[in-house]
């Protein structure tokens, strides 16, 4: 997969993919040629089209919200004009692709969902159709073919905008997922020599690595002899998760610390027994509090009440 250097981020649509998309909708060199020929006429009616388009946007409450003031409207109209002129530039290769991809990202940034700009394309189609046909009074066949070429290109543009919008959303979701991962696996020192790690969710391979690394490092950092691993927040346990848990426990023990597995609820206990998982070597308790008792025991510590003053 080639990397485009034109944009700052990795795009989902490569140069090869762009060629394939054009082939799929049947956008040919001939179409490009017709669009090039349309330019003079298009330049003549673009002003009208953009004006009309924005009348509709401003009239509709939801889209109006994107244009807070006159300056914003003027700016966007200028961009829109440039966009429309781009449709008849005659060159639809990698530079064109890069330029259109930017639009999708901008839309994602400002929160403009695909619903609206697809609506806009529908308006475009209505507005340009009579004008394009009117540009070829003597040759209606050419007029139609030019119109179809324009519609194909606009369709390709929509595809690109949607693709980039989705990709940008995906990136946000991935980032959030990573952050959730971070939040979900804290390892906290709850007493001198005791760390506690509440596990939330399931343990896939990637999460296990992350969890293990963090847990082991904290054990060493805090010089802890006991690690309480609490699985109250683990909804179900399958063979894979059980396996990973055991690996984690084994690794902590290799360091020289003891593990107490806490939060083992009846349903989990049942599953583990049914899976034939051998936990006979591991100290388990049904609650974190009970685990703390065990930890204090191991450290040969005792909690006594304060004498009244």
């Amino acid at each position: 997969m080639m990397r485009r250097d034109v944009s700052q981020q990795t795009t989902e649509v490569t140069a090869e993919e762009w060629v394939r998309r054009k082939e799929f909708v049947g956008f040919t060199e001939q179409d490009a040629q017709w669009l090039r020929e349309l330019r003079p006429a298009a330049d003549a009616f673009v002003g009208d089209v953009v004006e009309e388009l924005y009348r509709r946007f401003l009239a509709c409450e939801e889209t109006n919200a994107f244009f807070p003031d006159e300056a914003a409207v003027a700016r966007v109209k200028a961009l829109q004009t440039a966009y429309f002129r781009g449709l008849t530039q005659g060159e639809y290769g990698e530079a064109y692709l890069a330029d259109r991809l930017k639009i999708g990202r901008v839309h994602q940034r400002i929160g403009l969902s695909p619903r609206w700009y697809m609506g806009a394309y529908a308006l475009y189609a209505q507005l340009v159709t009579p004008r394009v046909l009117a540009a070829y009074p003597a040759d209606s066949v050419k007029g139609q073919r030019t119109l179809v070429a324009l519609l194909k290109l606009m369709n390709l543009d929509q595809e690109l905008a949607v693709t980039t919008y989705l990709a940008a959303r995906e990136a946000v979701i991935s980032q959030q997922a990573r952050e959730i991962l971070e939040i979900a696996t804290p390892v906290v020192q709850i007493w001198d020599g005791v760390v506690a790690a509440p596990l939330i969710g399931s343990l896939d391979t990637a999460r296990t690595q992350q969890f293990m690394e963090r847990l082991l490092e904290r054990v060493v950092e805090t010089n802890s002899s006991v690690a309480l691993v609490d699985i109250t927040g683990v909804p179900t346990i399958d063979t894979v998760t059980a396996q990973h848990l055991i690996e984690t426990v084994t690794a902590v023990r290799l360091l020289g610390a003891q593990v107490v597995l806490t939060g083992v609820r009846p349903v989990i206990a049942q599953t583990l027994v049914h899976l034939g998982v051998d936990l006979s070597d591991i100290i388990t308790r049904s609650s974190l509090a009970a685990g703390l008792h065990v930890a204090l025991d191991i450290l040969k510590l005792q909690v006594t009440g304060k004498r009244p003053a």
Partner: protein
Amino acid sequence: MSTDHIAVLKVREALLVTVPSDPEDATVAALQEQVLRAMERHAGKGLVLDLSGVETVDSYFARTITETAQMVGLMGGRTVLAGMRPSVAMTTVQLGLLFPNALTALDVDRALDLLATPEPDGRRP
């Protein structure tokens, strides 16, 4: 590269060996040899292997350590692996290696404490 020299020290009635960071097979074999000879001379409570400098544990290393622990056991002592690094622990577990005859401790100090206290609670990795 010559074999690293293995020093076996006697500390608080136990033997202490500091394992070099990336020992070759011959060094590991020599370690076992030295430990057994030292066990012969001063029976003591057992062996502490300081692994804090060790960067790689492969199957040969694990096997030899386990054998050594077994032998120490047969001679009446216990073996404690001290200060294993997190990255090594994780790799060892992933590789499926076990050390069934050895105890573990966070550092040499605690390892020696462990050996000084009499048996029972059967803490094993």
